[in-house]
């Protein structure tokens, strides 16, 4: 090649794409995601049993009462969903009024000045308004509150199983159908998300139960709507992002030849 010739042609990014590997995609879904899903459905009762026992032990270590363990139904003909039963602590009026004042004051601060309209301010305002509604509910009709701490515990566990199933299906589809690169990397992404979900689900369960038992069920709606699954998506997408960045690096360096143009 003459020295004045261009040594490399840089292909435009415009119409490049990757070769589809449908067999790999099908195998990933059938041999990895589907068995994982079946295992999860068969053993979610064991998971909730371990999680609930751990929560009961930790709450007792923290000076709480010895909680009982009960079981509810998540999916018919599959195992029960175990949950801890703790006594319900009702809020007193001073606590309700204090929370109400803090909520309204914070919402006012967030909706004025330079903070107004910023995403975090909007998010916090919506969440604080939910807590304000809870305060108003307890203020006007404490006895009408339909949930005990036992109900919340049951709902949390069911929601947590829902998170595990949904996350496995969602990341399975994303990694199986849209994913590229080493199978091990994709499997690791799925496993990381599921492990993080198990750990966070447990830690949050203990924390929620402790706060609701120690302070009162006034915080129940806030925990359910603000600190629940919304936060799970942060680590879900964060782990996906780490995995995708690795794929971008590989396809821009080592695997340039895998690109197809149009």
């Amino acid at each position, binding site marked *: 090649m003459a020295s004045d010739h261009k040594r490399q042609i840089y292909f435009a990014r415009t119409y490049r794409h*990757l070769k589809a590997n449908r067999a790999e995609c099908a195998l990933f879904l059938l041999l990895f995601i589907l068995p994982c899903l079946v295992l999860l459905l068969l053993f979610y009762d064991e998971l909730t049993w371990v999680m609930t026992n751990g929560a009961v032990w930790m709450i007792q270590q923290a000076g709480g009462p010895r909680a009982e363990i009960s079981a509810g*139904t998540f999916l018919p003909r599959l195992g029960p969903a175990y949950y801890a039963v703790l006594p319900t602590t009702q809020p007193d009026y001073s606590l309700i009024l204090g929370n109400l004042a803090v909520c309204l004051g914070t919402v006012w601060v967030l909706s004025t000045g330079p903070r107004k*309209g910023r*995403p975090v301010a909007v998010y916090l305002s919506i969440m604080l308004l939910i807590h304000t509604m809870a305060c108003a509910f307890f203020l006007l009709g404490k006895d009408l509150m339909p*949930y005990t701490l036992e109900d919340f515990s049951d709902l949390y566990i069911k929601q947590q199983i829902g*998170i595990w199933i949904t996350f496995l299906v*969602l990341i399975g589809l994303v990694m199986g159908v849209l994913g590229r690169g080493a199978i091990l990397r994709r499997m690791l992404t799925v496993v990381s998300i599921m492990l993080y979900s198990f750990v966070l689900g447990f830690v949050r369960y203990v924390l929620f139960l402790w706060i609701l038992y120690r302070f009162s069920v006034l915080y129940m709606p806030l925990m359910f709507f603000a600190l629940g699954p919304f936060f799970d*998506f942060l680590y879900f997408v964060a782990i996906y992002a780490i995995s995708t960045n690795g794929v971008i690096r590989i396809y821009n360096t080592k695997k340039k030849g895998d690109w197809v143009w149009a």
Partner: protein
Amino acid sequence: MGIIVLKGYMIFTIVLMIVYAVRHLLFAYNRAFGKQKLYYNDIYSSRMPKISVLVPMHNEEQVLHYVLDSLLQCDYDRDRLEIIPINDNSTDRTRELLDEYHAKYEFIRPLHRDCPDRGKPAGLNDAMAVATGDIIIVFDADYRPATDMLKQLAIAFADPSVGAVMGRVIPYNANRNMLTRLINLERSGGYQVDQQARYNMGLIPQYGGTVGGFRKDLLLKMGGFNPAVLAEDTELTFRLFTNGWKVIYANSAECYEETPETWEVRGRQIRRWSRGHNNVMFRYFLRVLVTKHMNWKEKLDGILLLLVYAVPFLLAVGQLDAIALFFLHEMDILSGWWVLLFIGAYCSFGNFAPFYEIGSALTMDGIKNEVYLLPLIMYNFYFYMWTISLGFLDAIADLITGRQVVWAKTKRFTK
């Protein structure tokens, strides 16, 4: 009965979100692995059509020289090109600066408007009345077209079935702050994957009102732009499709724009888009369903596209619905985990592009590290839900009261 309605609405919201999530999954798959439909890059003719480049401006002294200087650099026969900057009731030095350009370049012919009906659609109508080109190309004043941009956009009209063409928009101030970086992610997902996949799949690529063009005679025959519509671009897209014309997408025609650098400006921009888009949705929903010029795939995509700015409002109602169900002790529907699916579905939907669509776009673009910002788009979700819902309510109020819309310009940040 009330409980059944509340639960029914929640299930409706879940189903709606799954439909959008699947739609975007298909788009991402098509863009990542499907055969790409090429644009008309390789058929440059020696005799390109006569084009008129319209640049609507209102108080654009800060940025107008960027767009005009970029247009002057463009590779297009000067005798087949005219540039019409539309000075729409500016109160700054826009008029003076444009006249200076006109003195230097005869083919830059500013149109000065000093009239009460300020706004992009009205300005474009007036400019089309004096334009001599067969093809109209539109750029907003904050855009910086590349040298081959005019040729790239104009060549599409060699195909007689093409009514309009749209290029790719890329922020040039992407690294200014967190907001611009997040908008850059959305733009990447929205154009590199969404628009290109819709073009590949024979669906509805959208004309975006800038970095695009259309046939002048066609639009004049259709009565020009409607000054009462804020989203004249979306309206043109659906007007063309429901009349049997095609809108095509040119992914290779990359043009740089300035994106908002503050949340306040972004919020106003999004609210205005939502108001305009929903206004078009009310006008075209039935027309899309009954038109004989669109096949079932185009109709389905058209309806989903029309509903895009209504979805955040429907989700906001869904959120209130979930809170109501919670306090009514009815949250335990279908064993409790549907609530997760509901939340999961809208999180995966995100705002304008779900996370996996953006991830695919960044892979195609080969952009490293920016993908680490993806988790932050979750916080944008509530911001968009709020501002887009306000825009939706604006559109409802417009529909009920028949009030006149007032055009508002996006603030510029270039010094």
